[in-house]
Protein backbone atom coordinates (compact mmCIF):
# COMPACT_ATOMS: atom_id res chain seq x y z
CA UNK A 1 0.00 0.00 0.00
CA UNK A 2 2.93 2.31 0.58
CA UNK A 3 3.77 4.39 -2.44
CA UNK A 4 7.32 5.39 -2.98
CA UNK A 5 8.65 8.49 -4.55
CA UNK A 6 10.25 7.83 -7.88
CA UNK A 7 13.66 8.65 -6.51
CA UNK A 8 14.30 11.82 -8.45
CA UNK A 9 14.55 13.85 -5.28
CA UNK A 10 15.12 13.12 -1.68
CA UNK A 11 13.96 15.46 1.00
CA UNK A 12 16.76 17.97 1.36
CA UNK A 13 18.54 18.15 4.73
CA UNK A 14 17.40 20.89 7.10
CA UNK A 15 20.32 23.21 6.38
CA UNK A 16 19.57 23.18 2.69
CA UNK A 17 15.87 23.74 3.28
CA UNK A 18 16.52 27.00 5.04
CA UNK A 19 18.46 28.39 2.10
CA UNK A 20 16.53 26.82 -0.77
CA UNK A 21 13.81 29.24 -1.74
CA UNK A 22 11.63 27.31 -4.13
CA UNK A 23 8.60 29.51 -4.66
CA UNK A 24 8.93 33.25 -4.54
CA UNK A 25 5.97 35.61 -4.66
CA UNK A 26 6.70 39.32 -4.33
CA UNK A 27 4.34 42.31 -4.43
CA UNK A 28 1.79 40.23 -6.32
CA UNK A 29 -1.41 42.00 -7.38
CA UNK A 30 -4.28 40.47 -9.27
CA UNK A 31 -7.18 42.34 -10.78
CA UNK A 32 -9.77 40.64 -12.96
CA UNK A 33 -10.92 42.89 -15.76
CA UNK A 34 -13.97 41.28 -17.39
CA UNK A 35 -14.90 42.75 -20.75
CA UNK A 36 -18.41 43.82 -19.88
CA UNK A 37 -18.41 44.38 -16.13
CA UNK A 38 -16.60 46.14 -13.33
CA UNK A 39 -13.07 44.94 -12.44
CA UNK A 40 -12.50 42.78 -9.35
CA UNK A 41 -9.44 43.23 -7.22
CA UNK A 42 -8.70 39.67 -6.12
CA UNK A 43 -5.26 39.87 -4.51
CA UNK A 44 -3.29 42.78 -3.08
CA UNK A 45 0.43 42.85 -2.30
CA UNK A 46 1.04 39.18 -1.68
CA UNK A 47 4.59 38.43 -0.47
CA UNK A 48 5.53 34.85 0.25
CA UNK A 49 8.61 32.71 -0.05
CA UNK A 50 8.28 28.97 0.20
CA UNK A 51 11.30 26.83 0.91
CA UNK A 52 12.00 23.69 -1.01
CA UNK A 53 10.15 20.80 0.57
CA UNK A 54 7.92 23.04 2.65
CA UNK A 55 4.24 22.38 3.22
CA UNK A 56 2.17 25.57 3.05
CA UNK A 57 -1.56 25.90 3.54
CA UNK A 58 -3.65 28.87 2.50
CA UNK A 59 -6.86 29.63 4.37
CA UNK A 60 -9.27 32.49 3.95
CA UNK A 61 -12.93 33.32 3.48
CA UNK A 62 -14.74 32.26 0.31
CA UNK A 63 -13.99 34.53 -2.63
CA UNK A 64 -10.83 35.99 -1.11
CA UNK A 65 -8.60 34.86 -3.98
CA UNK A 66 -7.21 31.46 -2.92
CA UNK A 67 -7.95 29.78 -6.25
CA UNK A 68 -6.65 32.86 -8.01
CA UNK A 69 -3.33 32.60 -6.16
CA UNK A 70 -2.95 28.93 -7.10
CA UNK A 71 -3.80 29.62 -10.74
CA UNK A 72 -1.13 32.30 -10.89
CA UNK A 73 1.40 29.89 -9.36
CA UNK A 74 0.33 27.28 -11.91
CA UNK A 75 0.90 29.70 -14.78
CA UNK A 76 -2.76 29.55 -15.78
CA UNK A 77 -3.74 33.09 -14.95
CA UNK A 78 -1.67 36.23 -15.66
CA UNK A 79 -0.77 38.43 -12.72
CA UNK A 80 -1.44 42.17 -12.77
CA UNK A 81 1.76 43.18 -10.99
CA UNK A 82 4.64 41.69 -9.01
CA UNK A 83 6.90 38.70 -9.51
CA UNK A 84 6.25 34.98 -9.23
CA UNK A 85 9.14 32.53 -9.49
CA UNK A 86 9.33 28.80 -9.09
CA UNK A 87 12.78 27.21 -8.85
CA UNK A 88 14.30 30.46 -9.98
CA UNK A 89 12.19 30.71 -13.13
CA UNK A 90 9.64 33.43 -13.75
CA UNK A 91 6.19 31.80 -14.09
CA UNK A 92 4.61 32.93 -17.34
CA UNK A 93 3.25 29.60 -18.48
CA UNK A 94 2.66 26.23 -16.77
CA UNK A 95 5.87 24.54 -15.66
CA UNK A 96 6.25 20.76 -16.10
CA UNK A 97 7.41 20.25 -12.51
CA UNK A 98 4.09 21.46 -11.16
CA UNK A 99 1.13 19.21 -10.43
CA UNK A 100 -2.30 20.55 -9.58
CA UNK A 101 -5.47 19.30 -7.97
CA UNK A 102 -8.45 21.40 -9.00
CA UNK A 103 -11.37 22.49 -6.87
CA UNK A 104 -13.64 20.40 -9.15
CA UNK A 105 -12.34 16.94 -10.19
CA UNK A 106 -12.26 17.86 -13.93
CA UNK A 107 -11.88 14.32 -15.20
CA UNK A 108 -12.33 13.51 -18.89
CA UNK A 109 -15.61 11.57 -19.26
CA UNK A 110 -14.36 9.58 -22.27
CA UNK A 111 -11.42 8.16 -20.36
CA UNK A 112 -11.42 5.47 -17.70
CA UNK A 113 -10.28 6.43 -14.23
CA UNK A 114 -6.91 4.83 -14.89
CA UNK A 115 -6.41 6.66 -18.18
CA UNK A 116 -7.45 9.90 -16.51
CA UNK A 117 -4.74 9.43 -13.92
CA UNK A 118 -2.23 8.80 -16.72
CA UNK A 119 -2.98 12.11 -18.48
CA UNK A 120 0.10 14.04 -17.21
CA UNK A 121 2.45 11.14 -18.00
CA UNK A 122 0.94 10.91 -21.46
CA UNK A 123 1.22 14.64 -22.14
CA UNK A 124 4.83 14.75 -20.98
CA UNK A 125 5.63 11.49 -22.81
CA UNK A 126 7.05 9.86 -19.69
CA UNK A 127 7.97 6.18 -19.59
CA UNK A 128 4.57 4.41 -19.77
CA UNK A 129 5.41 1.18 -17.93
CA UNK A 130 6.87 2.93 -14.91
CA UNK A 131 4.06 5.44 -14.65
CA UNK A 132 1.35 2.84 -15.13
CA UNK A 133 2.75 1.09 -12.12
CA UNK A 134 2.81 4.35 -10.17
CA UNK A 135 -0.75 5.19 -11.25
CA UNK A 136 -1.90 1.84 -9.94
CA UNK A 137 -0.09 2.38 -6.62
CA UNK A 138 -1.70 5.80 -6.24
CA UNK A 139 -5.17 4.45 -7.04
CA UNK A 140 -4.64 1.67 -4.49
CA UNK A 141 -3.56 4.22 -1.94
CA UNK A 142 -6.67 6.38 -2.29
CA UNK A 143 -8.95 3.34 -2.16
CA UNK A 144 -9.94 3.21 -5.82
CA UNK A 145 -8.73 -0.34 -6.44
CA UNK A 146 -11.24 -2.06 -8.70
CA UNK A 147 -12.44 1.19 -10.24
CA UNK A 148 -9.59 1.61 -12.73
CA UNK A 149 -11.71 0.59 -15.71
CA UNK A 150 -14.77 2.61 -14.67
CA UNK A 151 -15.70 5.90 -16.25
CA UNK A 152 -15.92 9.07 -14.12
CA UNK A 153 -19.74 9.21 -14.15
CA UNK A 154 -19.80 5.81 -12.45
CA UNK A 155 -17.97 7.25 -9.39
CA UNK A 156 -19.14 9.49 -6.57
CA UNK A 157 -17.89 13.08 -6.33
CA UNK A 158 -15.45 12.19 -3.57
CA UNK A 159 -14.08 9.25 -5.56
CA UNK A 160 -13.63 11.47 -8.60
CA UNK A 161 -11.76 13.98 -6.46
CA UNK A 162 -9.45 11.22 -5.21
CA UNK A 163 -8.75 10.22 -8.82
CA UNK A 164 -7.88 13.89 -9.48
CA UNK A 165 -5.36 13.73 -6.62
CA UNK A 166 -3.75 10.64 -8.17
CA UNK A 167 -3.53 12.47 -11.50
CA UNK A 168 -1.70 15.39 -9.88
CA UNK A 169 0.84 13.02 -8.33
CA UNK A 170 1.45 10.55 -11.14
CA UNK A 171 4.37 12.43 -12.69
CA UNK A 172 5.90 13.03 -9.24
CA UNK A 173 5.89 16.82 -9.50
CA UNK A 174 8.37 18.85 -7.49
CA UNK A 175 5.64 21.34 -6.66
CA UNK A 176 2.13 20.27 -5.78
CA UNK A 177 -0.69 22.82 -5.84
CA UNK A 178 -3.96 21.65 -4.31
CA UNK A 179 -7.21 23.57 -4.38
CA UNK A 180 -9.46 22.22 -1.65
CA UNK A 181 -8.66 18.66 -2.65
CA UNK A 182 -10.54 17.05 0.22
CA UNK A 183 -13.66 19.22 0.17
CA UNK A 184 -15.87 16.51 -1.28
CA UNK A 185 -14.75 13.78 1.14
CA UNK A 186 -16.41 12.53 4.30
CA UNK A 187 -14.62 13.33 7.56
CA UNK A 188 -13.07 9.88 8.00
CA UNK A 189 -11.76 9.55 4.44
CA UNK A 190 -10.51 13.09 4.71
CA UNK A 191 -8.43 12.31 7.78
CA UNK A 192 -7.08 9.22 6.11
CA UNK A 193 -6.16 11.22 2.98
CA UNK A 194 -4.44 13.83 5.16
CA UNK A 195 -2.25 11.18 6.72
CA UNK A 196 -1.46 9.67 3.33
CA UNK A 197 -0.66 13.07 1.85
CA UNK A 198 1.82 13.73 4.66
CA UNK A 199 3.47 10.38 4.01
CA UNK A 200 3.78 11.01 0.25
CA UNK A 201 5.13 14.45 0.97
CA UNK A 202 7.67 13.10 3.48
CA UNK A 203 8.87 10.43 1.06
CA UNK A 204 9.00 12.60 -2.04
CA UNK A 205 10.24 15.93 -0.69
CA UNK A 206 7.61 17.84 -2.63
CA UNK A 207 6.88 21.48 -2.06
CA UNK A 208 3.14 21.73 -1.39
CA UNK A 209 0.76 24.69 -1.47
CA UNK A 210 -2.67 23.57 -0.30
CA UNK A 211 -5.83 25.64 -0.19
CA UNK A 212 -8.33 24.51 2.40
CA UNK A 213 -11.44 25.63 4.23
CA UNK A 214 -10.56 23.58 7.27
CA UNK A 215 -8.34 25.31 9.81
CA UNK A 216 -7.53 22.09 11.75
CA UNK A 217 -6.53 20.44 8.48
CA UNK A 218 -4.21 23.34 7.68
CA UNK A 219 -2.61 23.13 11.14
CA UNK A 220 -2.23 19.36 10.99
CA UNK A 221 -0.54 19.34 7.58
CA UNK A 222 1.51 22.50 7.33
CA UNK A 223 4.83 23.99 8.18
CA UNK A 224 3.20 27.41 7.82
CA UNK A 225 -0.36 28.56 7.35
CA UNK A 226 -1.01 31.63 5.23
CA UNK A 227 -4.14 33.47 6.39
CA UNK A 228 -5.76 35.64 3.75
CA UNK A 229 -8.17 38.46 4.56
CA UNK A 230 -11.54 38.97 2.95
CA UNK A 231 -11.58 40.10 -0.66
CA UNK A 232 -9.43 41.74 -1.86
CA UNK A 233 -7.13 39.08 -0.42
CA UNK A 234 -4.14 40.32 1.56
CA UNK A 235 -1.92 38.26 3.79
CA UNK A 236 -3.32 38.81 7.29
CA UNK A 237 -0.74 36.59 8.97
CA UNK A 238 1.63 33.75 8.25
CA UNK A 239 1.48 31.31 11.16
CA UNK A 240 4.42 28.91 11.56
CA UNK A 241 3.21 25.56 12.91
CA UNK A 242 5.86 24.27 15.25
CA UNK A 243 4.63 20.72 15.83
CA UNK A 244 7.17 17.92 15.52
CA UNK A 245 7.08 15.60 12.53
CA UNK A 246 6.19 12.98 11.61
CA UNK A 247 2.72 13.87 12.86
CA UNK A 248 -0.21 11.60 13.41
CA UNK A 249 -3.82 12.53 14.05
CA UNK A 250 -3.19 12.39 17.79
CA UNK A 251 -1.28 15.66 17.59
CA UNK A 252 -4.53 17.48 16.88
CA UNK A 253 -5.83 16.85 20.39
CA UNK A 254 -2.73 18.49 21.87
CA UNK A 255 -2.99 21.94 23.44
CA UNK A 256 -0.40 23.40 21.09
CA UNK A 257 -2.39 22.47 18.04
CA UNK A 258 -5.46 23.96 19.66
CA UNK A 259 -3.63 27.22 20.24
CA UNK A 260 -2.74 27.43 16.53
CA UNK A 261 -6.30 26.68 15.47
CA UNK A 262 -7.67 29.37 17.79
CA UNK A 263 -5.15 31.89 16.65
CA UNK A 264 -6.03 31.40 12.98
CA UNK A 265 -9.73 31.32 13.71
CA UNK A 266 -9.44 34.64 15.55
CA UNK A 267 -8.71 36.32 12.22
CA UNK A 268 -12.04 35.27 10.85
CA UNK A 269 -13.94 36.05 14.02
CA UNK A 270 -12.43 39.54 14.06
CA UNK A 271 -13.67 40.07 10.53
CA UNK A 272 -16.96 38.44 11.62
CA UNK A 273 -16.71 36.00 8.77
CA UNK A 274 -17.96 32.55 9.50
CA UNK A 275 -16.16 30.26 7.13
Amino acid at each position, binding site marked *: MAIKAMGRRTRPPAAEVSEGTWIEVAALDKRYQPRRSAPTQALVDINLTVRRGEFISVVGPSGCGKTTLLKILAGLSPKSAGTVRIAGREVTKPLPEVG*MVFQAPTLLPWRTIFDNVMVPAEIQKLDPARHRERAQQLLDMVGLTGFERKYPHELSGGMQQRAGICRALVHDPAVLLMDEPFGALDAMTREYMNVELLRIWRESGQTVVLVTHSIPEAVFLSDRVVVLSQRPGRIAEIVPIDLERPRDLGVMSSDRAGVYVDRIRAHFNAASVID
Partner: protein
Amino acid sequence: MATTEVVGGARTPAPEKPTRRRLDLRERPQLWLVPAVFVVVVLAWEYGTELFSVDEYVLPRPSQIFDALGRQLGDGLFWSHLWVTSREALLGFLIGVGAAVLLGTFISQVKVVEATLMPYIVAFQTVPKVALAPLFVLWFGFGLTSKVVMAAVISFFPMLVNVIEGLRAADADRIQMLTVFGAGRAQIFRMVRLPTALPFIFAGLDIGIVFAILGAVVGEFIGAKEGLGYLLLQTNYNFDISGMFAVLVVLSVMGLVAHFVIRLLQRRLAFWAEDTRVIGA
Protein backbone atom coordinates in the same frame (compact mmCIF):
# COMPACT_ATOMS: atom_id res chain seq x y z
CA MET B 1 -5.51 3.40 11.85
CA ALA B 2 -9.25 3.41 12.23
CA THR B 3 -9.88 5.14 8.95
CA THR B 4 -8.36 2.47 6.74
CA GLU B 5 -11.52 0.41 7.19
CA VAL B 6 -13.62 3.16 5.69
CA VAL B 7 -11.46 3.47 2.66
CA GLY B 8 -10.99 -0.29 2.60
CA GLY B 9 -14.73 -0.63 2.21
CA ALA B 10 -14.48 0.97 -1.19
CA ARG B 11 -11.96 -1.61 -2.26
CA THR B 12 -14.37 -4.37 -3.16
CA PRO B 13 -14.79 -4.33 -6.94
CA ALA B 14 -17.75 -2.26 -8.04
CA PRO B 15 -20.75 -4.36 -8.98
CA GLU B 16 -20.94 -4.97 -12.70
CA LYS B 17 -23.73 -3.14 -14.41
CA PRO B 18 -25.73 -5.39 -16.72
CA THR B 19 -24.27 -4.70 -20.13
CA ARG B 20 -27.33 -5.73 -22.13
CA ARG B 21 -30.62 -4.03 -21.48
CA ARG B 22 -33.18 -6.63 -20.62
CA LEU B 23 -36.26 -7.17 -22.74
CA ASP B 24 -38.51 -6.19 -19.89
CA LEU B 25 -41.89 -5.13 -21.25
CA ARG B 26 -42.87 -3.36 -18.04
CA GLU B 27 -39.76 -1.23 -17.93
CA ARG B 28 -39.70 -0.56 -21.64
CA PRO B 29 -43.33 -0.40 -22.76
CA GLN B 30 -42.27 1.00 -26.13
CA LEU B 31 -41.21 -2.54 -27.07
CA TRP B 32 -44.85 -3.42 -27.57
CA LEU B 33 -46.34 0.07 -27.96
CA VAL B 34 -44.40 0.89 -31.13
CA PRO B 35 -45.50 -2.24 -33.06
CA ALA B 36 -49.01 -1.86 -31.61
CA VAL B 37 -49.33 1.67 -33.02
CA PHE B 38 -48.11 0.40 -36.38
CA VAL B 39 -50.73 -2.38 -36.46
CA VAL B 40 -53.53 -0.03 -35.41
CA VAL B 41 -52.63 2.58 -38.04
CA VAL B 42 -52.30 0.01 -40.82
CA LEU B 43 -55.63 -1.63 -39.89
CA ALA B 44 -57.40 1.74 -39.65
CA TRP B 45 -55.93 2.73 -43.00
CA GLU B 46 -56.87 -0.59 -44.62
CA TYR B 47 -60.49 -0.68 -43.41
CA GLY B 48 -60.99 3.08 -43.27
CA THR B 49 -60.23 3.44 -46.96
CA GLU B 50 -62.60 0.53 -47.67
CA LEU B 51 -65.32 1.93 -45.41
CA PHE B 52 -65.24 5.38 -46.99
CA SER B 53 -64.49 3.84 -50.40
CA VAL B 54 -61.44 6.03 -51.00
CA ASP B 55 -60.25 5.77 -54.59
CA GLU B 56 -57.08 3.68 -54.87
CA TYR B 57 -55.67 6.31 -57.23
CA VAL B 58 -55.88 8.79 -54.37
CA LEU B 59 -54.82 6.63 -51.44
CA PRO B 60 -54.08 2.94 -52.01
CA ARG B 61 -54.68 0.51 -49.19
CA PRO B 62 -51.73 -0.99 -47.25
CA SER B 63 -52.44 -4.41 -48.75
CA GLN B 64 -52.17 -2.93 -52.24
CA ILE B 65 -48.95 -1.15 -51.36
CA PHE B 66 -47.66 -4.39 -49.93
CA ASP B 67 -48.50 -6.20 -53.19
CA ALA B 68 -46.80 -3.48 -55.22
CA LEU B 69 -43.75 -3.71 -52.98
CA GLY B 70 -43.64 -7.47 -53.50
CA ARG B 71 -43.85 -6.98 -57.26
CA GLN B 72 -41.01 -4.47 -57.24
CA LEU B 73 -38.74 -6.44 -54.97
CA GLY B 74 -39.09 -9.39 -57.36
CA ASP B 75 -38.00 -7.22 -60.27
CA GLY B 76 -34.28 -6.98 -61.08
CA LEU B 77 -34.77 -3.50 -62.60
CA PHE B 78 -36.04 -2.16 -59.26
CA TRP B 79 -32.87 -3.31 -57.50
CA SER B 80 -30.74 -1.50 -60.04
CA HIS B 81 -32.74 1.71 -59.35
CA LEU B 82 -32.18 1.20 -55.64
CA TRP B 83 -28.46 0.66 -56.22
CA VAL B 84 -28.18 3.82 -58.32
CA THR B 85 -29.80 6.03 -55.68
CA SER B 86 -27.87 4.43 -52.82
CA ARG B 87 -24.60 4.99 -54.65
CA GLU B 88 -25.41 8.63 -55.42
CA ALA B 89 -26.50 9.32 -51.84
CA LEU B 90 -23.55 7.53 -50.25
CA LEU B 91 -20.93 9.13 -52.49
CA GLY B 92 -22.45 12.57 -52.03
CA PHE B 93 -22.68 12.00 -48.28
CA LEU B 94 -19.03 10.99 -48.00
CA ILE B 95 -17.85 13.93 -50.09
CA GLY B 96 -20.09 16.49 -48.38
CA VAL B 97 -19.38 15.28 -44.87
CA GLY B 98 -15.66 14.84 -45.53
CA ALA B 99 -15.36 18.37 -46.92
CA ALA B 100 -17.34 19.72 -43.96
CA VAL B 101 -15.03 18.03 -41.43
CA LEU B 102 -11.92 19.41 -43.14
CA LEU B 103 -13.26 22.92 -43.59
CA GLY B 104 -14.90 22.96 -40.16
CA THR B 105 -11.66 21.94 -38.45
CA PHE B 106 -9.74 24.58 -40.39
CA ILE B 107 -12.29 27.26 -39.57
CA SER B 108 -12.42 26.42 -35.88
CA GLN B 109 -8.64 26.40 -35.53
CA VAL B 110 -7.69 29.54 -37.42
CA LYS B 111 -9.35 32.76 -36.30
CA VAL B 112 -8.75 34.69 -39.54
CA VAL B 113 -10.29 31.94 -41.63
CA GLU B 114 -13.33 31.89 -39.39
CA ALA B 115 -13.75 35.66 -39.54
CA THR B 116 -13.37 35.64 -43.31
CA LEU B 117 -15.55 32.69 -44.22
CA MET B 118 -18.36 32.82 -41.65
CA PRO B 119 -20.41 35.54 -43.42
CA TYR B 120 -20.33 33.52 -46.66
CA ILE B 121 -21.27 30.32 -44.89
CA VAL B 122 -24.20 31.99 -43.17
CA ALA B 123 -25.28 33.51 -46.50
CA PHE B 124 -25.05 30.17 -48.33
CA GLN B 125 -26.93 28.44 -45.56
CA THR B 126 -30.01 30.53 -46.25
CA VAL B 127 -30.08 29.45 -49.91
CA PRO B 128 -32.59 26.61 -50.31
CA LYS B 129 -30.14 24.03 -51.62
CA VAL B 130 -32.89 21.99 -53.29
CA ALA B 131 -33.49 24.92 -55.63
CA LEU B 132 -29.99 24.42 -57.02
CA ALA B 133 -30.85 20.98 -58.44
CA PRO B 134 -31.82 22.24 -61.95
CA LEU B 135 -28.55 24.11 -62.12
CA PHE B 136 -26.52 21.04 -61.17
CA VAL B 137 -28.29 18.95 -63.80
CA LEU B 138 -27.50 21.66 -66.34
CA TRP B 139 -23.86 21.75 -65.33
CA PHE B 140 -23.16 18.09 -64.64
CA GLY B 141 -25.65 16.29 -66.88
CA PHE B 142 -28.26 13.59 -66.39
CA GLY B 143 -25.86 11.03 -64.94
CA LEU B 144 -24.41 10.22 -61.57
CA THR B 145 -22.39 13.42 -61.07
CA SER B 146 -25.21 15.93 -60.73
CA LYS B 147 -26.92 13.82 -58.03
CA VAL B 148 -23.69 13.27 -56.12
CA VAL B 149 -23.08 17.01 -56.16
CA MET B 150 -26.62 17.70 -54.97
CA ALA B 151 -26.30 15.14 -52.15
CA ALA B 152 -22.89 16.50 -51.18
CA VAL B 153 -24.00 20.14 -51.08
CA ILE B 154 -27.11 19.42 -49.07
CA SER B 155 -25.37 17.21 -46.48
CA PHE B 156 -22.40 19.58 -46.23
CA PHE B 157 -23.97 22.44 -44.28
CA PRO B 158 -25.52 20.68 -41.28
CA MET B 159 -22.25 18.79 -40.87
CA LEU B 160 -20.16 21.96 -41.12
CA VAL B 161 -22.19 23.76 -38.48
CA ASN B 162 -21.92 20.79 -36.14
CA VAL B 163 -18.17 20.38 -36.62
CA ILE B 164 -17.50 24.06 -35.91
CA GLU B 165 -19.85 24.13 -32.95
CA GLY B 166 -18.48 20.85 -31.58
CA LEU B 167 -14.83 21.86 -31.81
CA ARG B 168 -15.70 25.05 -29.97
CA ALA B 169 -17.67 23.37 -27.22
CA ALA B 170 -14.69 22.13 -25.20
CA ASP B 171 -14.97 22.92 -21.50
CA ALA B 172 -12.55 25.69 -20.41
CA ASP B 173 -11.74 23.89 -17.14
CA ARG B 174 -10.70 20.76 -19.00
CA ILE B 175 -8.44 22.79 -21.26
CA GLN B 176 -6.91 24.46 -18.19
CA MET B 177 -6.35 21.07 -16.61
CA LEU B 178 -4.44 19.83 -19.68
CA THR B 179 -2.52 23.12 -19.86
CA VAL B 180 -1.27 22.74 -16.29
CA PHE B 181 0.13 19.35 -17.15
CA GLY B 182 1.97 20.86 -20.10
CA ALA B 183 -0.28 20.07 -23.07
CA GLY B 184 0.26 22.02 -26.30
CA ARG B 185 -2.34 22.97 -28.90
CA ALA B 186 -2.20 19.65 -30.74
CA GLN B 187 -2.53 17.63 -27.54
CA ILE B 188 -5.45 19.76 -26.35
CA PHE B 189 -7.11 19.23 -29.72
CA ARG B 190 -6.68 15.47 -29.59
CA MET B 191 -7.43 14.96 -25.90
CA VAL B 192 -10.33 17.37 -25.36
CA ARG B 193 -11.58 19.22 -28.43
CA LEU B 194 -12.04 16.23 -30.68
CA PRO B 195 -13.77 13.99 -28.12
CA THR B 196 -16.03 16.91 -27.17
CA ALA B 197 -16.92 17.41 -30.84
CA LEU B 198 -17.69 13.74 -31.45
CA PRO B 199 -21.36 13.79 -30.36
CA PHE B 200 -21.86 16.92 -32.51
CA ILE B 201 -20.21 15.20 -35.46
CA PHE B 202 -22.55 12.25 -35.09
CA ALA B 203 -25.52 14.59 -34.99
CA GLY B 204 -24.22 16.05 -38.26
CA LEU B 205 -23.79 12.59 -39.78
CA ASP B 206 -27.30 11.66 -38.75
CA ILE B 207 -28.88 14.64 -40.50
CA GLY B 208 -26.36 14.46 -43.33
CA ILE B 209 -27.23 10.93 -44.43
CA VAL B 210 -30.95 11.67 -44.57
CA PHE B 211 -30.26 14.91 -46.46
CA ALA B 212 -27.98 13.05 -48.90
CA ILE B 213 -30.80 10.64 -49.80
CA LEU B 214 -33.12 13.62 -50.22
CA GLY B 215 -30.54 15.34 -52.44
CA ALA B 216 -30.11 12.31 -54.68
CA VAL B 217 -33.88 11.85 -55.10
CA VAL B 218 -34.45 15.54 -55.86
CA GLY B 219 -31.63 15.42 -58.41
CA GLU B 220 -33.33 12.46 -60.06
CA PHE B 221 -36.62 14.33 -60.16
CA ILE B 222 -35.03 17.08 -62.22
CA GLY B 223 -33.32 14.91 -64.77
CA ALA B 224 -32.38 11.24 -64.71
CA LYS B 225 -32.90 7.96 -66.50
CA GLU B 226 -32.61 5.76 -63.45
CA GLY B 227 -32.85 5.75 -59.66
CA LEU B 228 -35.67 5.70 -57.13
CA GLY B 229 -36.55 9.36 -57.78
CA TYR B 230 -36.92 8.56 -61.46
CA LEU B 231 -39.03 5.51 -60.54
CA LEU B 232 -41.25 7.71 -58.34
CA LEU B 233 -41.98 9.95 -61.30
CA GLN B 234 -42.57 6.95 -63.61
CA THR B 235 -45.05 5.32 -61.25
CA ASN B 236 -46.75 8.69 -60.88
CA TYR B 237 -47.11 9.17 -64.66
CA ASN B 238 -48.48 5.64 -64.97
CA PHE B 239 -51.05 6.17 -62.21
CA ASP B 240 -49.38 3.31 -60.32
CA ILE B 241 -50.06 5.00 -56.98
CA SER B 242 -49.48 1.82 -54.93
CA GLY B 243 -46.15 1.45 -56.74
CA MET B 244 -45.30 5.02 -55.79
CA PHE B 245 -46.08 4.35 -52.15
CA ALA B 246 -43.96 1.22 -52.33
CA VAL B 247 -40.98 3.32 -53.51
CA LEU B 248 -41.64 5.75 -50.65
CA VAL B 249 -41.57 2.83 -48.22
CA VAL B 250 -38.23 1.71 -49.64
CA LEU B 251 -36.83 5.24 -49.34
CA SER B 252 -37.93 5.45 -45.71
CA VAL B 253 -36.32 2.11 -44.96
CA MET B 254 -33.09 3.34 -46.56
CA GLY B 255 -33.11 6.40 -44.32
CA LEU B 256 -33.92 4.31 -41.25
CA VAL B 257 -31.15 1.81 -41.90
CA ALA B 258 -28.61 4.62 -42.37
CA HIS B 259 -29.85 6.30 -39.19
CA PHE B 260 -29.48 3.12 -37.16
CA VAL B 261 -26.00 2.41 -38.51
CA ILE B 262 -24.92 5.88 -37.42
CA ARG B 263 -26.56 5.51 -34.01
CA LEU B 264 -24.78 2.21 -33.56
CA LEU B 265 -21.42 3.80 -34.39
CA GLN B 266 -22.23 6.65 -32.03
CA ARG B 267 -22.99 4.32 -29.14
CA ARG B 268 -19.64 2.68 -29.73
CA LEU B 269 -17.48 5.74 -30.32
CA ALA B 270 -19.17 8.49 -28.29
CA PHE B 271 -20.51 6.28 -25.52
CA TRP B 272 -20.19 8.93 -22.80
CA ALA B 273 -22.66 11.33 -24.40
CA GLU B 274 -26.21 10.45 -23.49
CA ASP B 275 -27.98 12.58 -26.05
CA THR B 276 -26.67 14.81 -28.79
CA ARG B 277 -27.70 18.34 -29.42
CA VAL B 278 -28.77 18.26 -33.01
CA ILE B 279 -28.21 21.42 -34.98
CA GLY B 280 -30.34 21.66 -38.07
CA ALA B 281 -29.31 22.86 -41.48
